[in-house]
């Protein structure tokens, strides 16, 4: 791993709105440059996407963008990001995705020219390679439309580029359900890391060619799947916590390849990435309840530079359209954080402490997101010589932190959960630091019909 030391060593420096390496955008946002902006995520209501509905689809996105920007203006917003997380048809047929970017960029430009309101579009195509099993990560024909949407979409005005890539998911899907931590390390730190190198080299290349911003990748398909399963009490929260930490070594590869942030909102590994690399990050928490429940509503914002929701359908609520309503909530949260930042370090720390204190001991997944714990775990995530060793060390540090919180009586977990602590620790300790040894150990244990090593360059 390229990173050997942390850019942020002091938990006090891990603060919302402030990143050591802020990102400036075309229409004047300075993400991580001293204030928090809202990042709105939205989606279509129940409908099909086909030739006969395309006009309706475009109208939805135009109305979402106009509704959000008009309200942002009304609320005196300092700027917002619109996240366009495409639906499959929009990546499969890139011209649809590009058209939507064009429409929304037109709206953004209009508000910028007329009212000086800054906004940008984050473009998040789908990883279509998931449609093939075993996945053909490198030779898949699906790569073509994905890359075309990235390139044509950025030319059309999508300035921040992200994806929720899925390399290793064919192994992690089963490992998650079996609470198989070795399988998760293999999926994320061996397969995921390799696929991230492959994919992000391309994305960064395109971004540099067109002067756009390679932002970052979220381990959504791994760690958020774990979080949602834990929320449903299907797998232990402790396991989901460990998966989150392991996912850092996979998501950081985007930065190693040249991505500069803001990392994507649903990647709750963001705080670790910020501590290690200094990039700004987007986070979502209580505001994502429209799409999925979570145990870290407040603490997720402790060091966010963009504050986001999750896909909210464009449906009418009593107040107005749902995306506009969510923009308002995000904007109020951002205002509060910005007021604290303007009042000075003492105030921003008090606000941060409250955000942390209100969640920290309610769930191990919240626990690891406190700035102190993020820095402590991040230190372990960079000290080894391989991604595998780093994943293992980070996960062990998280287990230590969970055990300390239990021992001190500050956090309580049922026996059904704590029973997994020794199992996970033993499993992690059985992982060799050396990657080749680890691969040799895992191959006989895995169903090799499910993935193709060559597609990961192995």
């Amino acid at each position, binding site marked *: 791993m390229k990173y050997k030391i942390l850019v942020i060593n002091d938990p006090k420096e891990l603060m919302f709105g402030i990143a050591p390496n802020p990102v400036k955008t075309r229409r004047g946002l300075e993400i991580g440059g001293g204030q928090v902006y809202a990042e709105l995520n939205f*989606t*279509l*209501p*129940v*409908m*099909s*996407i086909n030739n006969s509905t395309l006009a309706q689809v475009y109208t939805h996105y135009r109305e979402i963008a106009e509704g959000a920007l008009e309200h942002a203006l009304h609320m005196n917003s300092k700027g917002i990001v619109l996240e366009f997380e495409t*639906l*499959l*048809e929009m990546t499969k047929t890139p011209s649809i995705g590009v058209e939507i970017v064009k429409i929304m960029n037109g709206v953004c430009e209009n508000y910028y020219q007329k009212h000086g309101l800054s906004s940008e579009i984050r473009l998040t195509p789908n990883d279509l390679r*998931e*449609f093939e099993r075993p996945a053909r990560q490198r030779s898949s024909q699906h790569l073509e439309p994905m890359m075309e949407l990235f390139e044509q979409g950025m030319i059309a005005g999508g300035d921040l580029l992200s994806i929720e890539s899925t390399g290793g998911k064919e192994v992690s*899907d089963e490992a998650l*359900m*079996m*609470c198989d931590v070795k399988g998760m390390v293999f999926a994320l730190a061996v397969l995921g890391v390799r696929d991230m190198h492959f994919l992000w080299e391309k994305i960064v290349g395109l971004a540099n060619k067109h002067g756009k911003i390679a932002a970052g990748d979220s381990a959504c398909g791994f760690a958020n*799947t774990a979080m949602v*399963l834990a929320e449903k*009490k*299907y*797998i*232990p929260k402790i396991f989901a916590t460990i998966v989150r930490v392991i996912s850092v070594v996979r998501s950081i590869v985007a930065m190693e390849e040249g991505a500069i942030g803001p990392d994507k909102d649903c990647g709750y590994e963001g705080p670790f990435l910020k501590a290690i690399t200094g990039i700004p990050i987007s986070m979502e928490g209580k505001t994502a309840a429209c799409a999925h429940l979570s145990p870290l509503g407040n603490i997720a914002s402790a060091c966010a530079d963009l504050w986001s929701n999750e896909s909210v*359908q464009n449906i009418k609520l009593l107040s107005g359209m749902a995306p506009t309503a969510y923009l308002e909530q995000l904007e109020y949260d951002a205002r509060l954080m910005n007021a604290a930042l303007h009042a000075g370090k003492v105030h921003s720390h008090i606000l941060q402490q409250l955000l942390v204190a209100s969640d920290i001991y309610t769930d191990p997944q919240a626990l690891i997101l406190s700035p102190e714990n993020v820095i402590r775990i991040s230190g372990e995530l960079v000290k080894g010589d391989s991604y595998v060793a780093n994943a293992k060390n980070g996960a062990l540090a998280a287990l230590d932190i969970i055990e300390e919180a239990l021992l001190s009586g500050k956090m309580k977990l049922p026996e*059904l959960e704590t029973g997994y602590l020794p199992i996970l620790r033993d499993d992690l300790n059985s992982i060799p630091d050396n990657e080749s040894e680890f691969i040799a150990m895992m191959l006989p244990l895995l169903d090799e019909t499910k993935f193709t090593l060559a597609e990961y360059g192995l």
Partner: protein
Amino acid sequence: MEDLLVKLLEAVEFGKVDKKSPYPPQLRDMDGAHELTISAIEAGIKPQIILEEALIPAMSKVGKKFAECKIFVPQMLMSARAMGASMFQLKPFFASGAIKTKGTFIIGTVKGDLHDIGKNLVSMMVEGGGWSIVDLGVDVGSDKFVEALKNNPGAVVGLSALLTTTMVNMGEIVSTIRVHAPETKILIGGAPVTAEFCQNIGADFYAPDPQKAVEYMNLLAS
């Protein structure tokens, strides 16, 4: 004889696949579902009895514990594997017609959608409830459902969708099935799906979770 069934029930309930399996620790070195099923067949216990008095009650206990949040999915999966080991031994008796399941359940995630965790859980629980499963996987269009119904006449169908833009495909699948096999019972589920939607598209039952699906299917079978 009774004793063997009790032991098999316990092996499946706690997920003991075979003797060499280290899981669960409390049953280490004891016979698992594999050995106990062989012994039960050798002891002359009717396969139908093995199914109805050991396997199905074991999985129903597992399902109940899961519904009450007393176990996690991995434990349930281990039980499913243990049941699988037992079913493998019973396979010849299914083929000869000596035992019958409650029926066949064809399940799939609809066209355009790849979310399959929920679908897999439903299929596992329904199987544990004593049904044969035909899992069509993800991204499944109406043609595949119709074909599977041709191969398994009278089967119950389950559709899963997690996206607001793919749940609409359920409507098309239901209508196509109604043309080819109008009597088919169709269950639907997935995060954005509702009972109202179920009614609108003419499906038969909406279940928010696997337990409700199993309860409904047991009513169908009874």
